[in-house]
């Protein structure tokens, strides 16, 4: 879908909210986000929810893209990227629909990208005010992965798992059709961005407990998460070593 160029506002921005069964959180999260980020178009990627997520989001005035089956977080976010690219948005902010991300961070992230200081701005909960709990397995894993990514990229990364991000159009194109993991975009994705020649910057933001519902990282999942992440990072490194990784502009 093409963007029509009748009139060009300063920057056309999109707020992407991947949502899986978030009908109870959306009535609080959406207006809050809307108040914090006026001038943004909002798209809710309804990831095959079994509740009224789509109806609620629509009634709150957001564009809704409904995935007929549940793809998982990465698949949903990537759908948002595709939507952004096909509609010609120049900047997109991804934010969780469960209320974990303080909408005040939207502008902090987006402006860093809009000023051209970076290609991707990642909201870090560790640089910002800490208001958050994590299972210890995941916390340990995250520390290890953050350290690994920091060492390999030469930039300090404190929160590679953060799903609160702002991306410019180049990165959106890079991720929209390829290069994006299906399940958890994470430390491996940051590494990939680095090797592909994009600049990644962390911006301190506040994160909170979920308003309601079950987080996707609960129960035995932290263990699976750590293993999977380790494999994903190894693979990015291996690809970098064995053949040319997809370079910037190749997309």
């Amino acid at each position, binding site marked *: 879908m093409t963007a029509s160029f009748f009139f060009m*506002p300063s920057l056309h921005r999109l707020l992407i909210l991947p949502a899986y069964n978030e009908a109870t959180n959306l009535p609080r999260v959406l207006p809050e986000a809307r108040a914090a980020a*006026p001038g943004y*178009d909002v798209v809710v990627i309804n990831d095959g929810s079994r509740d009224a997520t789509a109806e609620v989001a629509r009634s709150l005035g957001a564009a809704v893209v409904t995935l*007929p*089956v549940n*793809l998982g977080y990465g698949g949903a976010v990537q759908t948002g990227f595709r*939507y952004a690219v096909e509609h010609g948005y120049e900047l997109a902010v991804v934010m969780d629909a469960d209320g974990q991300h303080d909408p005040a961070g939207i502008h902090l992230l987006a402006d860093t990208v809009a000023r051209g200081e970076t290609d991707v701005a990642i909201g870090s909960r560790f640089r910002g005010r800490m208001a958050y709990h994590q299972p210890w397995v995941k916390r340990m894993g995250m520390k290890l992965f953050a350290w690994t990514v920091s060492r390999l990229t030469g930039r300090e990364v404190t929160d590679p798992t953060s799903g609160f991000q702002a991306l410019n159009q180049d990165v959106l194109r890079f991720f929209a059709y390829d290069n994006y993991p299906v399940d958890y975009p994470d430390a491996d994705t940051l590494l990939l961005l680095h090797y592909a020649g994009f600049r990644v910057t962390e911006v301190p933001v506040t994160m909170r407990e979920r308003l309601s519902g079950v987080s996707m990282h609960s129960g035995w999942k932290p263990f699976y998460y750590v293993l999977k992440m380790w494999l994903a990072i190894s693979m990015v490194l291996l690809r970098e070593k064995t053949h040319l990784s997809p370079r910037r502009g190749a997309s």
Partner: protein
Amino acid sequence: MMAPLPRFLVFLLGVAVLLVVINLVRRRTLQERYAILWLLAGVVLTLSPVFIPLLDHLAFSMGFEYPPALLLLLAVVGLLLITFQLSLTLSRSEERIKLLTQELAILRQQMELLKLSARQPSAAKPTERTHDEPDTDFNNT
């Protein structure tokens, strides 16, 4: 040495596998490329009663003290091959399903917008904005 009855049973099992696989391919329930390994398994089962003395020899010459161990090893390797092929296929299929799902979702959203604008022609007119989607309503309401 294997007694005649077990040999006959193995032969029957092999024939059954062959028949089932061939029939499934004939009815297009099973694709040829996945049938090949199963057909191979069927042929091996069918012919194995004949080759069992040979296999015993081979096993002893390879240092197996218990000849059926070689048979089991071969069976496990065969099954591993089949499951590995399935894992590969599954990965590729998931990638395709993801792509189709995303494409479908975006197209459906587009279609709903078009339907909406067809019902209210005023909404269809290109405005001064870069977008004529209702998602801009979000900022107006």
